């Protein structure tokens, strides 16, 4: 059946080389100095695999393939050129596209092969389609929340988990029936539909602060559904790529949930919004001290060591470039400035690093939580920009706090703490932050970008004489 005798081994070899390149690609991501080789390796692997596939027997309609590749490229280029602040929603959207592709291929394979499908194939095909479709709608929901088309607050209702569990059971039962009776074609759309619904319902109760974990989890699901597709098509290349993506998403979700001191189950089944009520009771009126940009500038320039703690608020205010100016100005005055990065700061893993790198801040100035926490006691000023819960000392001390036990950045150990914040209103999770009422804390009220700009202007105007 081959176009030419002997093409099959050639195809297999391109797939083998592509698999090796994919693994190397991820290996080279271990360090920023080799990471771009990783992208090259991945691209070459992808081209080889696509080239090999075009040689497969039975392929006649090259024109349609070319049209689809061109259209996909046309959509892909703008998605590759989005602003860095839009990267979380772009990532969610690409999880959705990946899962969409897997679901479509699974559906097409089912209708092509049914009813002659072996039990094993039907079982993995069901896994592929269920995981694919719930990841598709779930990722669209996550993307909608990140793009703020949908409300970011968790939406909860009574019996939510029960409803989801029942839907999942129905989908699995339907899949089980299809394994035994693969001719029951009318069941298939129902399974897809239920999985679509399940994806929506799973993400509805999840709040913005949980997005890093959820995005990682969806990443893992997308990988696993692709691996299941590899089993259906008996393609080792797909199994390998899916397993790599699945384990990557899984590792990131574990890191993210550890950084929030929450289990997977807790992220998926217990919306943050539900625990708010416990914290409101028994607050006596406490006072926070505020300061102006001029005062803040004077304190910063008198410091030897400054640690900046960026959070989602910096991303929202697009303040990263102004923060770079502040970094430059202070560095020129001999102040040592570093950045403390909490694993869940922002809306996806590594979000803050990308924003600060975009603003040309050298990555060796960005320090992970475990490495910087011991140094806050020798830090003169901790400047918190748009971060809240990840700096909340209640996580260490107050066992009644919903975030008790969550690892935090110990900014309260610095000699002076300055917090740029719009108002005293509690953060995303609705939890009050005792940090703001410490004697050493100065609140800098205002928009992060404008306030940092004011500080930079004070430093430029007031100094040097």
């Amino acid at each position, binding site marked *: 059946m081959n176009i030419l005798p002997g093409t099959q081994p050639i195809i297999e070899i391109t797939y083998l080389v592509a698999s090796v390149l994919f693994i190397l690609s991820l290996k080279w991501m271990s360090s920023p100095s080799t990471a771009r080789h990783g*992208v090259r390796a991945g691209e070459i692997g992808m081209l080889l695999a696509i080239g090999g596939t075009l040689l497969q027997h039975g392929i006649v309609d090259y024109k349609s393939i070319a049209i689809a590749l061109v259209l996909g490229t046309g*959509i892909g280029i703008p998605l590759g050129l989005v602003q860095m602040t839009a990267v979380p929603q772009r990532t969610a959207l690409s999880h959705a596209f990946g899962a969409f592709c897997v679901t*479509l291929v699974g559906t097409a394979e089912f*209708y092509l092969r049914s009813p002659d499908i072996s039990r094993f194939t039907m079982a993995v095909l069901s896994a592929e389609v269920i995981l694919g479709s719930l990841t598709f709608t779930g990722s669209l929901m996550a993307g909608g929340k990140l793009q703020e088309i949908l409300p970011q607050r968790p939406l909860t209702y009574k019996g939510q988990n029960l409803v989801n569990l029942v839907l999942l059971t129905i989908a699995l039962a339907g899949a089980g029936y299809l394994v035994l009776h693969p001719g029951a074609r009318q069941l298939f759309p129902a399974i897809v539909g239920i999985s679509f619904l399940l994806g929506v319902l799973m993400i509805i109760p999840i709040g913005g602060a949980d997005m890093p974990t959820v995005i990682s989890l969806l990443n893992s699901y997308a990988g696993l559904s692709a691996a299941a597709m590899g089993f259906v098509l008996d393609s080792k290349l797909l199994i390998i790529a899916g397993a790599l993506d699945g384990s990557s998403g899984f590792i990131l979700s574990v890191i993210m949930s550890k950084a929030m001191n929450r289990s997977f189950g807790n992220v998926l089944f217990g919306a943050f919004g539900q625990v708010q009520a416990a914290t409101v009771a028994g607050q006596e009126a406490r006072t926070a001290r505020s300061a102006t940009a001029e005062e803040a500038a004077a304190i910063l320039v008198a410091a030897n060591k400054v640690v900046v703690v960026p959070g989602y608020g910096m991303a929202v205010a697009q303040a990263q470039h102004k923060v770079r100016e502040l970094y430059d100005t202070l560095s020129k005055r001999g102040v040592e400035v570093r950045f403390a990065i909490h694993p869940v700061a922002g809306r996806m*893993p590594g979000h803050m690093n990308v924003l600060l790198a975009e603003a040309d801040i050298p990555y060796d100035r960005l320090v992970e939580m475990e490495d910087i926490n011991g140094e806050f006691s020798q830090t003169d000023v901790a400047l918190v920009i748009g971060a809240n819960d990840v700096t909340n000392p209640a996580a260490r001390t107050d066992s009644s706090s919903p975030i008790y036990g969550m690892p935090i950045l110990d900014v309260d150990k610095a000699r002076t703490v300055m917090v740029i914040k719009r108002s005293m209103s509690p953060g995303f999770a609705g939890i009050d932050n005792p940090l703001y009422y410490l004697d050493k804390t100065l609140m800098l009220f205002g928009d992060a970008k404008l306030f940092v700009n004011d500080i930079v202007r004070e430093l430029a105007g007031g100094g040097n004489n």
Partner: protein
Amino acid sequence: MSSTLINGLFVFILAAFIGFEVIRRVSPLLHTPLMSLTNALDAIAVVGAIVLVGRHESRLSYLLGMLAVIAATSNIVGGFLITDRMLKMFKTSRPTQP
């Protein structure tokens, strides 16, 4: 159990192990580009979709395949592009790279 299943499971388990070992070593600094890169690699699912389109066995499989190729290709192109853009931004303050 068919040998296809066993072979597939061998490959899956070994690849997952390699994945764990390799990705554990990725610096948290690069977690965002890591995610966009794995996303692009995952779009290798395009090979399954290409076969569906190319073989044109039924109207349905052709249409679904076309959409799948478009979706996966946009992930490949967009994923590699944005990963490279992000990685280009990571610079060190040290003048020369070790």
